[in-house]
């Protein structure tokens, strides 16, 4: 884990991603970026900005609309010793890559008994909000968490975005890298030098005593906002960010939940057979004296995501619903409470820069 900092340079998540890739490409000739529009003027919402100018079109390679074949190409190139970063502007599009990712990338090292490696990164963005709708907003991380041979990471802040990306590029396994679009312009203190954020190590972002709340991807930010609201109601919430989902640091989560006695997992995904189900199961399997008394999960409403904001507002967990649920779990005998709407509005503006 890198050194934490509470001073230094503030950098946005998107710029941190770009910097990670730039530094790795400068360090290692075998690293290259590939994907639709990685070299255009929008530069994947800024995350590939300047790369094609610096490294040329062979190392920042645009592709046709051919996710299936391009994933295979990345796998073959990785087997030959290159280190591809395959970029998809929406995680929904990974569904076009499933045969290659799951039948080949995940399995090649095992099936061929260690004689090949597939060191590739598959970056993709979760849409959310502003009418992205059913097919431009999904986070499908739980599908990939299910598969031995894949790694899955979902950094929630700029510091981890850079460190996890560097780690993912250096990892000799296929890594599914999950980026939430709304995190792109959040800032935190990001060291200028190169550093790795170790996969399989969760972080306790804020310590607390009354309830453990685990947030995944941008839900970490929503949980931090909920934690502020809960403070005003006298509840001390401990916020844990797993950072990587496979490998998953269930030990840290379980220890926190044993301490507080209450565990709420808030996922940017459906709860059914989702990441939250995996986390709760891992904790539930512990011996009785190491389990929390109360467990619950929140995620997308169990429906397809609607486009209209009138309905979309009810689709995702938000700081108000998270705080209300946590309060109910922490004060089961108390009357129901929801945060003051004015306070909730202010909470939305709060930015968390670190230290991380």
């Amino acid at each position, binding site marked *: 884990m890198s050194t934490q900092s509470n001073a230094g340079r503030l950098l946005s998540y998107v710029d941190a991603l770009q910097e990670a890739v730039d530094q790795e490409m400068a360090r290692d000739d075998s690293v290259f970026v590939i994907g639709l529009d990685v070299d255009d003027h929008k530069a994947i919402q800024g995350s590939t900005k300047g790369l094609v100018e610096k490294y040329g079109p*062979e190392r920042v390679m645009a*592709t*046709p609309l*051919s996710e*299936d*074949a*391009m*994933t*295979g*190409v*990345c*796998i*073959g*190139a*990785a*087997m*030959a*010793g*290159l280190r591809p970063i395959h970029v998809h502007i929406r995680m929904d599009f990974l569904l076009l890559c499933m*045969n*290659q990712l799951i*039948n*080949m990338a995940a399995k*090649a*090292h*095992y*099936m*061929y*008994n*260690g*004689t*090949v*490696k*597939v*060191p590739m990164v598959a970056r993709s963005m979760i849409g959310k909000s502003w009418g992205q709708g059913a097919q431009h907003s999904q986070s499908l991380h739980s599908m990939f968490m299910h598969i*031995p*041979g894949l*790694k899955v990471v979902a950094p929630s802040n700029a510091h981890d975005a850079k460190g996890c990306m560097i780690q993912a590029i250096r990892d*000799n*396994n296929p890594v599914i890298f999950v980026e939430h679009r709304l995190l792109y312009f959040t800032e935190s203190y990001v060291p200028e030098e190169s550093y790795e954020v170790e996969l399989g190590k969760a972080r306790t972002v804020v310590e607390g005593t009354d309830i453990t709340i685990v947030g995944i991807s941008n839900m970490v930010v929503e949980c931090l906002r909920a934690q502020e609201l809960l403070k005003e109601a006298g509840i001390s919430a401990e916020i844990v960010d797993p950072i990587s989902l496979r490998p998953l640091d269930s030990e840290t989560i379980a220890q926190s939940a044993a301490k507080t006695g209450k565990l709420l997992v808030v996922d940017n995904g459906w709860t059914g057979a989702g990441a939250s189900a995996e986390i709760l199961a891992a904790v539930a399997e512990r011996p009785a004296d190491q389990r929390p008394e109360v467990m619950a999960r929140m995620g997308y409403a169990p429906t397809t995501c609607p486009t209209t904001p009138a309905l979309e507002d009810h689709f995702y967990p938000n700081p108000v619903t998270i705080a209300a649920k946590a309060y109910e779990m922490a004060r089961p005998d108390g009357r129901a409470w929801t945060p003051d709407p004015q306070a909730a509005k202010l909470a939305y503006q709060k930015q968390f820069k670190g230290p991380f």
Partner: protein
Amino acid sequence: MSRPSQDDILRLYRMLRLVRRTEEEIARIYPSDKIKSPVHLSIGQEFVSVGAIDPLNADDVVGITYRGHAAYLAKGGNLNTMMAELYGKAGGCAGGKAGSMHLVGMDVGVLGASAVVGTSIPIGLGYALALKREGKGRVAMIFCGDGATEEGVFAESLNFAALHKLPAIIVCENNSYAIHAPHSKRWATDKLCERVGTYDIPTQLVPNGDVFSVRDAVQDVLAGVRAGDGPAFIEAHCYRWREHVGPNEDFDAGYRSRKDLIPWLENDPMAVLGAMLTLEDRAAIDMDVETAIAEALDFAEASPFPGPEELMTHVYAE
């Protein structure tokens, strides 16, 4: 077409004989249940792999299919470890974890096979992309069947290979069947080479079942592919003599007739080349082949099964 030398004939016959006899032995042993894996035998089709691979260099790479025993052996794959792999033993080329459908031999440039049709095509192209960057003129030869040409990934792959002038030669073993379905049920038009040609990829059709013709087709394009002209495509007609998967014949199953087999039997490249040799040369090669196969069977028998601790090795790379 260049006249094959006696050396060429000897070399090609040896490999055809090795593959044929290996496959026949696998078929013979299969009912004993020593082979712990579905087998998709190359019998009848060996000449496509043998002829196509013959002009390659040792440091070129070959992407094989799940009907890959012929290509594996023709590229220099180890017969002992192939047999042990089929037996599910620790001494197998993949420690028993792959079986017949996922043979691999990275040390001799055999990329691992996939059991899912078409999957290995873009992977071979990705390797070719790396070879292009390397700039030493190495090529990737990628085998596929006629069924694979229907998968969407085939079109995606051709387009990308042509767009980036990848050093790849795609060899399609067209045996007319995707499992039991003939072209008439699957193909709107019988225009495979024309489809490929729309990407400006040079194509060659080899309909005559002749190993020298396959070899010549590769020779014709190889220098250009190495030089960076872009990929090439070869369609070779062939016929699968046994059932889709397994050791037996299936002409009484109803989807094809034994009479279709007859012209292929009569034209069997292994027999045709054998007849070009002296009796002594042929007998010597045949004896070598039997010895090699017997050794492989002994090797497979003697190799232990992997221990239970092997279940959890290589899930992730270090």
